[in-house]
């Protein structure tokens, strides 16, 4: 089944987040005096095929542990839902047309280990 994982990676509470502090300062500057704290993280969408949502959860958990989050400084959580294949993102479209992703030296862009 086609599934969509929405992964959120955030700095661990014990890690200083200078980006968050700076954004908070900006919001204060704009008059949002009620803002107490801001933490800046990352949001990652992954479309994947899996026999079940449970198996997808297991795989995405492994992706987070091995690459998407650095356990020294970051926490992660994710949600799995059924992917809406009619609304593929630009990235999803271009994956089927690799010629549209050429690197500057003319080689097809490759992932690590390629």
């Amino acid at each position, binding site marked *: 089944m086609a599934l969509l994982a929405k992964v959120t990676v955030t*700095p661990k509470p*014990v*890690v*200083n*987040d*200078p*980006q968050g502090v*700076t954004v908070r300062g900006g919001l204060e500057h704009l008059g949002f005096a009620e803002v107490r704290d801001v933490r800046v993280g*990352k949001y990652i969408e992954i479309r994947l095929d899996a026999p079940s949502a449970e198996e997808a959860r297991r795989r995405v958990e492994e992706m987070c542990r091995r*690459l*998407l989050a*650095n356990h*020294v*400084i970051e926490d992660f959580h994710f949600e799995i839902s059924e992917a809406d294949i009619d609304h593929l993102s630009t990235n999803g479209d271009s994956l089927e047309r690799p010629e549209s992703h050429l*690197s500057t030296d003319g080689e097809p862009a490759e992932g*690590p*280990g*390629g």
Partner: protein
Amino acid sequence: MNFGVVVFPGTWSDRDCGWVVDQVLGARLTYLWHKSPDLRGVDCVILPGGFSYGDYLRCGAIARFSPVMQAVAEFADRGGLVWGICNGFQVLCEAGLLPGALIRNDSMEFRCVWTDLIVERDDLPYTRETRRGEVLRIPISHGEGNYFADPETLARLEEDRQVVFRYRENPNGSANSIAGIVNRRGNVLGMMPHPERCCEAELGGTDGLKLFQSVIQSGVEVLTA
């Protein structure tokens, strides 16, 4: 002494390191392309500065999966000298060859300035031409050089004397003013400052040369032992 300088897509300090090895020191230089797992018999691997893989996801996060890094990890495991500078330090942390991580500078600024480094270890292959307590003037050039490790890891680093360089004035918020650390065995060094940028008087200083000369000196002793 044969230095291998690793080149990832986005590396920018490879030619600077190569220039020092080849033109300033007259040592043997081999560029190691990231796609090849063959270290071609080098004695010391340098992971230079830059933005490997565009710093996508996190600094160094993608570079560590390169074929060359598999070989570098095995080389380090055998006791080979692996020297990560700036982005190279970030790659070593991501690869788990050194503890901790490098996060955004607390100033939120990219800092490109000269720093004074206090030498904490002068008994390593990288620092034997320095003295403990000596101050080296070496520039930094990074946006994410703020060394972070949990309190237990920091305590262990200090206890095992793994801190090699400390900033005299902390430019980025690094824990314990750490500018460079070594693994317990003493063969894998990671440092944010750029010694390759201060090896000729024309560039404003030559303190970086002491580290390169230390490595050469270590190599000479291995060969003659």
